[in-house]
């Protein structure tokens, strides 16, 4: 799984590409660090190329959300695929994340 981060001042866009399974969750800890350290800014996760997410991936999103709330930033999830959208609905995450 690949993460492409684009920073423009206070706005950070991260594009997540591929499968977000447990292995990917373990391997991508470093990749997500910049988002966690800058959780005080406006974070946008672009998920149109996220093909699959399991509970491990969801946990990462949840942790990021926690960090963003703690630091006073902003988190938006954009362009969810149908499959990922249904996962979010099924888990109730749809209610707690800002989805665009």
């Amino acid at each position: 799984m690949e993460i492409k981060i684009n920073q423009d001042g206070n706005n950070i866009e991260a594009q997540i590409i591929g499968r977000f399974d447990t292995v990917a969750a373990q391997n991508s800890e470093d990749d997500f660090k910049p988002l966690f350290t800058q959780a005080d800014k406006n974070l946008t996760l672009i998920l149109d190329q996220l093909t699959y997410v399991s509970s491990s991936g969801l946990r990462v999103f949840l942790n990021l959300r926690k960090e963003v709330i703690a630091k006073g930033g902003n988190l938006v999830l954009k362009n969810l695929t149908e499959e990922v959208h249904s996962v979010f609905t099924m888990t109730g995450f749809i209610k707690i994340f800002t989805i665009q």
Partner: protein
Amino acid sequence: MSVFNIRKSFATRLSTIIVLLVAIIFAMIFTLLSIFTEKLVKQSAEEQSEKALAANIMRIRQMLLQTENAVHETEWMVYSHIHTPDSLHSVTQHLVRKNSTIVGSCAALVPENKVSHGKSFAPYSCVIGSEIIDKQLGSEEYDYVNKDWYKNAISSGKTCWSEPYFDKDGINKDICTLSSPLRDNDGNIFAVFTADISLEWLTDIVNEGLPFENSYALITNAVGTYVIHPKKERIAKGNIFDAPENIDNPETQAFARNMIAGKSGQTEIKENGDSYFVCYAPINQTTWSLAIVSPHGDIFSIHNKMSIFMFIGLILSLLIISGVCVFIIKRITKPLSEFSAAALRISQGYFNIALPEIKVKDEIWELRESLDQMQYNLSRYTNRLKEVSANQAVSDRDEFIASKIQVQMLPPTFEKMVASLPGSQELLEGLDVAATLIPQQMVGGDFYYYQIINNHFMFCIGDVSGKGVPASMIMSANVMLFRCLSRMEESPAKLLTELNKIASESNKQSIFTTMFVGSIDLATGRFVFSNAGHIPPLFVGVEENVEKLEVDSNLALAIDKDFVYAEQEMQLHRNNLLLLCTDGVIEAEDNYMQAFGESQLIKVVQNNKESNAKKITEEIIKAVDSHRAMNNPADDFTLLAIKFLKKCENLTPSPKEEESEMKNMNESVSLHSPKEEKETSNEQSQLQVAPTEAVKEEATVEKVEEVEEVKEVPVVEETPPDFTDHITLQNQATQIRILERFVQSIADYFKISDDLTNKINMALEEAVINIISYAYPAGGNHQFSIDVEHRASLQLLTFIIIDDGIQFNPFEQEAPDITLSAADRPIGGLGIHIIREVTYKHSYAYEDNKNVLTLSFKLLE
């Protein structure tokens, strides 16, 4: 000096351009100047001519006037000598003597007058040479009365000039005569007093006052006869209109007409191809006109000379300019050639080339500085590269040497090894062994070994995690440990336990190593084995179907120093085959990331089970290579095929030395008595004390063979499945990927939608991660299986996940309160929730010491 062959020097080119430019400018200036000065010169010449003309006219007039005055002033002498005509010579002499311009004088008496007494009397004096000669013109030869000079004076009664004529009677020259009639008291003309002037002399006088060297003057009278002319023979005879050069010359005719018409002006005439400038004017109070003719050659001679000088001067300047340009430019650009030479040398690898010093800080200096810098940087860079590549070379060489060393760690071929042993023939008839090891890099972490100790065939196969030099170091340690421990310890379990102790002490990094150790009693066919996390061997038994041997995978090496390994036993019969390999064989991937797979391996072995060990390994290699196709191997590849042909009943007992050696060793080894038995598997773990003598069947050996697959937990629906599949996974998170591919292959087969496939993946991933994370708290390498069943009639796809970890029912967790906000929601339990949501049915059971998780999905059309 030029490095390459310069065809056109820069200096020459630039100079040529400059010179050309300058030349063009010079040419333009020259032309303009030329035109301008020509005009000026012409103007000046004309002025000069006019001035000369005017001056000459004045001169001539003066002279004529002078002559007239001279005559008039001498006239009284004639009067005073009237009565003595014979003494009139003194008067004419006097006139001639006193006036240098007068060359002849005559006092001609009118014969009809009483003074002459009716006689012709004309005393005449003339200058011949330097003397004055007296003559008498009144004679029959010279009838002066009819001469023009006499007649004109008589008829006009005034002083008058004659036309030019040749005085053959006097001085034999062309002259003009001034005649002055003298009157007596009665008013009658009694004498004509004359004065002659030489026209030749007049010509000379006039010619002195000409503007140019080759100018000449003409005087014409009222009819065009030349009064003076440069050609003396024309004087008084030639006529301007009839002159041969003028006859067909319209311009000359025109100007001649103007002249005799008394006009003044300027014109240009051409004569014999030469141009002449003519200015003319009448000599007032005469009937004559003076013309001054100047050749253009004279007029423009200075100008032409100047032009030529200027031209030569310009050419010289151009040459000098080009010379200087070339010189200066060459000097400035000389360093360029030196730079090229230097650059060439630098490119050949010399980084200490001295560059010429440039004094002026211009672009050439800039180039020099850059070259210098480049040299310096190149030198540094190359040195660094040399270092790196030297290091690389050393490293490559080391690795190469290491690979040679590593190859030597492996055992010789079975045939070779056996050849040096007693009873080799028997041994060859009893066992057929073949092995292959292909490391992925120069050295690798896979290993195998075998040797015959005490008529037991001791063998091992192992896989150190990783590749390359680090893995190879652990590999060599393990091989050595096996070689030496297998001499002393016949029990695979005890061997592994001891090896593990040693390996654990020196493996702080916990580099994961799996190993399988086996011992075959060649006389009896009894096969004892112990596994440390390795892939279980394939076995072809009497039923002749290829199965995976049920082995207790214990624990991989170097994880728990004090782990006590368990071993198992079985009886080998004729032509039984054991095939051991490392995961480089099973996991060999093709371009689509599809693993070769256990099932394919089983197939190949199945197809070749009749063949000898070598053939079997060859066929497997072929099959894997063809599967891998263009893909490069990703891991070390090891195969060990052992075919038990028959019992070797005629083997001699092992020599005494080995026995005592082993006895000694055994004492120390047997201190390690087995600890508690593990109860995690169905197989019996029989720990045997290693027999000191071979070929004794004291202990009863049960055939502990549980080769059948673990029975599936029956699904609630009794309908038999129309499709089944199976996968075994290790308890490592990375296996998720293998699971994903497995699920994808099933999804492709049943054309399941992406959405449902995702959901299946999610559910299975949760179940599997649960097992991996929680089922084996003690850790270690474990396996669990997933069975797949499809029932078309029910449109049901079922996954049955079976693991032998600690008892755990995932569904006893609470469902997460999904209404809580992210901040308040606890993290666990999400996975279970997902399983519940996506499956059609789910159930859990604990049977036969195994957790059985059943997940079913409805396949909708």
